[in-house]
């Protein structure tokens, strides 16, 4: 009897009791002008030069603001999701300024993590490349300053092409034919190292064919990956991951890094790589015998729209030093320090004039800046995209086609269904 009452009380308590925890509104309202400014930047394999530039910016900043110290923490890219989620849930452990990937922006903003930035008073802002600045916007509001941009182009082995008397492909459709020829005549080589998980290599194929991942209509997204144009792009890309070009057993599981790795190891005649892959390729067996051209579009002479990847610097919503944080963001993202970061890390600047300067001084960058100038595209700017990415919807779709588990029509239709579920949730 006694026990029953006890259980009953517990049960009633549980039903009446609270909902799951939520942390309160994160905007602090205070704006202190001194103290410690906390900054999160991404750790990198070869961090030394980056750290040196950042230190220079810090001493300049601390020289201008007495009583202010800047503490930088380098966080791992692979665990960034957990770190940022924790920071949003507990503003006390959060930084004031943070570097983050532009594809993460929409999710972070809807989680209430980053503050809106007013770039109007910042003189240099007008020189930012518009399509790159767009990657820092959600619903027309700016939440970050583009710090650097990354685009991909077609890497190819000059020695192999010369030996076989081939020219770099001039159209998107020629990529497959050229790659097939190479593998036919040199069976030990992969024609083009493409990956089943390499989303940013597949997207240009979809965009060049006139398709897109999703379309926006009045603030609402609907999947467009099952449109005829997108399907043509998916078919073109997955054609590359076949035994006569890039065998599925070796390529289906590869993402971007693994795809470039095969090229570095000298096992592939072509790959799709970024400007940021240059150093690692130069330190590999392909060094000195490779060239880069923009990924060609549907017609000869055109360029397939590339994905405008890159990182932003933003101010956290919960910061107690918003003015200082904004000033430091603008300093680190300024033309001066972007130039220094280019020299140190090879990061492509986000200002039109700085971009032109570095491209003029370095021929290697030409295919990349040409790609940037002919127009880049981006993934859907909605928090749902983070979910779609986490659930690996597009890679799964590509892999299903590559392994023959589904044909292009079914795989894209299923992916569209999953995406629409995410868009409407």
């Amino acid at each position: 009897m006694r026990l029953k009452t006890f259980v009953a009380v517990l049960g009633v308590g549980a039903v009446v009791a609270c909902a799951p925890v939520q942390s309160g509104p994160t905007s602090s309202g205070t704006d202190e002008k001194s103290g410690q400014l906390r900054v999160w930047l991404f750790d990198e394999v070869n961090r030394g030069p980056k750290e040196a530039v950042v230190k220079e910016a810090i001493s300049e900043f601390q020289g201008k603001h007495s009583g202010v110290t800047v503490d930088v923490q380098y966080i791992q890219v692979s665990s960034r999701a957990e770190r940022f989620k924790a920071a949003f849930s507990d503003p006390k452990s959060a930084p004031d300024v943070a570097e983050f990937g532009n594809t993460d922006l929409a999710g972070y903003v809807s989680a209430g993590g980053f503050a809106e930035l007013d770039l109007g008073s910042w003189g240099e802002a007008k020189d930012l490349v518009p399509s790159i600045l767009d990657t820092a916007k959600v619903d027309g509001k700016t939440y970050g300053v583009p710090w650097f941009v990354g685009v991909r182009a077609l890497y190819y082995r000059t020695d192999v092409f010369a030996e076989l008397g081939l020219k770099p492909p001039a159209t998107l459709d020629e990529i497959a034919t050229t790659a097939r020829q190479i593998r036919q005549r040199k069976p030990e080589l992969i024609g083009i190292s493409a990956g089943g998980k390499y989303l940013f290599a597949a997207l240009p194929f979809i965009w060049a064919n006139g398709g897109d991942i999703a379309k926006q209509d009045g603030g609402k997204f609907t999947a467009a990956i099952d449109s005829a144009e997108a399907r043509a792009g998916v078919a073109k890309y997955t054609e590359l991951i076949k035994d006569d070009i890039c065998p599925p057993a070796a390529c289906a599981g590869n993402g971007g890094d693994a795809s470039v790795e095969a090229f570095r190891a000298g096992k592939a005649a072509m790959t799709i790589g970024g400007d940021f892959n240059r150093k690692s390729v130069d330190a590999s067996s392909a060094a000195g015998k490779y060239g880069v051209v923009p990924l060609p579009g549907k017609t000869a002479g055109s360029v397939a729209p590339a994905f405008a990847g890159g990182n932003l610097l933003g101010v956290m919503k919960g910061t107690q030093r918003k003015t200082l944080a904004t000033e430091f963001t603008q300093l680190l993202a300024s033309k001066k320090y972007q130039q220094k970061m280019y020299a140190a890390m090879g990061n492509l600047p986000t200002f039109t004039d700085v971009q032109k300067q570095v491209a003029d001084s370095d021929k290697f960058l030409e295919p990349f800046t040409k790609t940037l100038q002919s127009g880049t595209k981006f993934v859907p700017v909605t928090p749902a995209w983070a979910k779609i990415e986490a659930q690996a919807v597009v890679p799964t779709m590509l892999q299903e086609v590559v392994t023959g588990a589904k044909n292009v029509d079914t795989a894209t239709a299923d992916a569209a269904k999953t995406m629409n579920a995410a868009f409407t949730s």
Partner: protein
Amino acid sequence: MTAKGQGRTAFAYLAPALLVLGGLLAYPIYQLVLISLYDYGQEQVSGGAPLEFLGLGNYRNLLGDRQFWGVLGQTVAFAAVCVVGTLLVGAFLAILATRVRTWVRMTLFLAALGAWSTPAVAGSTIWLFLFDANFGFVNEVLGIQGFSWTFDKWTAFGLVAAQVIWCSFPFVMVTLYAGIKAIPGEVLEAAALDGASAFRTAWSVMLPLLRPIILVVTIQSIIWDFKVFTQIYVMTNGGGIAGRNLVLNVYAYQQAFAASEYGLGAAIGVVMTVLLLGITMFYLRALRRSGEVL
């Protein structure tokens, strides 16, 4: 002392244990169930959006998802293979250990303990190195360079199952070895005097005596292998090509936690807990029906 007083004393003695159990078990489960009834994502956690009570909405979504059922079936089959494999290998080596010389047994135990104490991530990575398509030792020995073990669905599952068995058989082996050693010598002697064959002794004398221990290691193995995460996540790179090597835990992580859908993730957690409790209860009842005193 009255019956009531006795009950009160008993309760007082049990209170500390109940308190610990309540804190460590009941409260998390209560939270898990609670969260599973809400639309609870990152926006809700950090206060960017209001909470929405869904009732059984998360469960409806989950149970209506075809992929969930596929993954569930895969998980059950995978766990079954791992449990049977672990028990067979563990039992075989335990028996072997009772028959060999001391130094051989010591070597066997040290090797097993090494496998047991290797962290799952390290163990999985080392196995991946061993079975690497181009540079792996195994492919070199077999002369099949270029063969990818992780590409095909079944070889990938087989490889992961082998790794899981490798790192969980030592527990079974050590426990069973201790059990065999604890069987009184007189019993075996009596069986021998009665003219029982070795097989007969094993089947009719040792096995019944070992049954409680086998029961414990089986339940443990079921629970462990049903919840495998690290090995699949590391060795098949997050669930294999096109997700065909997903098991329930990795699926929950990918669909729910990585995607910040904590409500859905909690629902998957509740379903797993209920399933495991169900399997354990079923197993215990089956044993009781076969006359085992528990």
